[in-house]
Every structure is written in C-alpha cells, then in structure tokens.
C-alpha cells in the first residue's frame, strides 16, 4: 500500500520489511476483540447441578445448557478453549471448539460439548450418545471451564 503506518522490527527498514517483520501495518488488519463488549472475552464456568437428559439406546440427544447474546447482527468468529472435567493431563484435558467431555461405561456412551454461533447468540450444548447398552456418562457435579473469544470479524 502507498499510504498508512508501518512499524517494523528493530533494525529493519519499514519501507522494505516483509509482512512478518512488521509489528504494525495497515495492510494486515489486526484481529479485533472489542474491549467495550462484555462478552468478547469470557472465562465461563458451567456447573452441572442437574444431569442433561440421557439418550435412549441407539440414539443421541442434544440439550442446550447455556447461551448468551453476542451483540452483533451477523455470525462473528469465535474461539473456544475447553478445560475438560474428566480429562487427565494426557488425555483430553484441553481442547479447542467441541469435543468429548465424559464417557459412560463404554466409549459408545459419551457426552460432547458442542458450541455454535448464530447471528445473535453463542450456544453451548451437551450431546449425549448411547449406542450400546451400558451406563450413560454422568456430568452432575462437574464443572466445564471454557475460555471464549467473540471477535468483531465475521465468521
């Protein structure tokens, strides 16, 4: 671009610097989280004082457990980092976006967290699947911790 502001890394000519040598350039807009939008950066704890419904054998069932208005009139980009209450340091303790949060007596009874963004809301749901007879996963008493970013930018 022929106009604007560039700030390059130390010792590098800003006029000749490549994109990754620039700390600031109007040619590469910054990712934007609005500091005045209270939902743009949240640490969300969801504690289960009730058990989401179990799925009948051979099916899955999805239950909305939390949602909030994000304040935009379009689908914004969201990032989610989930700390899994059933994970160990070496198995599923953290994941990004959705994933399995609990299993039952076999891996065919599972519960996942599903995170969806619409033009007005961010929605958090638990889906329980039950595909071989056994004990369903139990979330009661556990807490899901989720870091959520809601960007200004459109998804």
């Amino acid at each position, binding site marked *: 671009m022929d106009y604007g502001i560039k700030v390059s890394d130390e010792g590098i000519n800003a006029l000749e610097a490549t*994109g990754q040598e620039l700390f600031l350039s109007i040619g590469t*807009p910054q990712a*934007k989280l609005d500091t005045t939008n209270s939902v743009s950066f949240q640490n969300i*704890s969801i504690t289960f*004082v009730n058990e989401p419904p179990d799925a009948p054998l051979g099916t899955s069932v999805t239950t909305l457990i939390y949602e909030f208005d994000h304040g935009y009139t379009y689908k914004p980009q969201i990032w989610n980092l989930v700390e899994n209450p059933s994970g160990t340091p070496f198995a599923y303790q*953290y994941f990004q976006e959705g994933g399995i949060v609990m299993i039952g007596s076999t891996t065919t009874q599972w519960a996942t967290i599903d995170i*969806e963004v619409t033009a007005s809301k961010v929605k958090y749901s638990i889906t329980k699947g039950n595909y071989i007879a056994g004990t369903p996963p139990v979330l009661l008493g556990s807490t899901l911790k989720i870091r959520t970013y809601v960007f*200004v930018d459109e998804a």
Partner: protein
Amino acid sequence: MAQDFGIKISKPRYSAIDGGDIDMVFSSSWPSISIAVDETVTGPTNLSHDLGFPPLTFLFGGGLRLFPNVTKDHIQVPSGDYHVIAYNLDLSVEKEYPFVNPPAIAGGYDSDYGIKIVKEGKDIDSTDMRDFVLHSRCQAPQVLAVKTETSIGDYVRSDSVTINNAISYTNPQGYVPWVFGYAGFNPGVLFGGIGDGNVEYVFGLYASQAYPRTFIDKTNNTAYITTSPGNADYASLVILRDPLFVAAEVAVTY
C-alpha cells in the same frame, strides 16, 4: 515487551512514556496477531497465497473453526464454503516474547482519544469495528512463542513418562495459553495433501489418538506436540496469549 521505538497510546491518566504494557490501550510493540489473508472460498481447493511462509490459518464455516493444512504457497480448503483467515504468523520460524501479566482491573477505553485507522473506502466515524484496520477500542490475541523442530527433544511428563520427539513450551506460571501444534512433512510424504512441492504443515489435534497430537500437561504447566517418530521432518508449536484487557468471569449452573 517495551521498546524504544514505535507507537504507544496509554490509558487515561497513564504516561505513554513511562507506563507498562498493561497501562496502554495500544502499543506497536505488542506482537498482536494480524490478518494477512481474508477470503471466502468454496472447496475443495488449494487456495494460493503470496505470503512466502506457512501461516497460522483457521477456516470458519457453519459456525465452526477448522485448522487446515498449509504450505508456504497454499491453504487446503475442504469441501464446502469457508471463510479463510490466515494470520501474519510464520509456523516455520522460532520466536519468543516476554509474558506480560494481564491487568487486574477493567476499564481504559475512552472514546475521546486513541488511535484508529479506517479501511479504504470506509468512514472514519463508523461505529462498526469491522471497518477498521486498527482501533484502540479493540485488542487482539498476542504471540507468546513459536517453537519449531530446532527445539525438538525429550519431554518428561508430570507422570515421569518420557516423550521422545516432542516440542514443548512451559507456560507462564498459572496461565494456560492457546496452543496450536503442527507437524511439517517434506513433499511426497502425505497422501491427499496439498502436494505443491513445499513442506506441508498438518494441525495436531488436542490429545488425539493419531499423530500429530498436541497436549497440555497442566501439572507441569507445559504444552507439547508429538509427531510420529521418524515421520515428520518439521514441527511447530504456536502459543498465543490473551489480549491485555480483563476477561469477564461468568459462572452459570445447569
């Protein structure tokens, strides 16, 4: 992170000259992530880019965020409609920046001063933050580190098991950052990859049962990625931190 050159905008009543990073609403020395590729694409296709390096890239489609394979020339887009966002962040070059503790109290934005740069053709008085290249009302996640295969080695987990061929990064105390792990493969190794003759970077899912896979060992406060031993030729661990404003703490019950 403070440097002797650049642009700094302080919060009201703080000195831009003497203030620390958390006293600023903007500093050009912050390694904030910026968007180098922003395109809507219908896949399957290999989207060309001219960055000259394999970028950290996300795909947004159907409300989900996906992590595509990338090379220094292309981004692999699967079947469907996606918004491709590639950041100005090279997966193949080591970097490390100091950690700055996040602020303890909220506040700081004042609409009467700051810095804003509007996109070409947009109104400088717009209240739609999408219209701006930069606006001191907004902040971005920042780069903490990029660790590459030059840092590969053994990682001793908190359960005393040694993981060979790992790239690890010990997080700032008490802080779990965003971690994106990649394995890089020489041309001809991957089946169904981009195949443009360049090293191809494949995202390592968190705690996946298949390689490459990325973990956070919370006990040791360490993130690490493992690749199939002897298979991957390159690897990368990207660590991002939160922007420097206070998160809303939300506690809900179901």
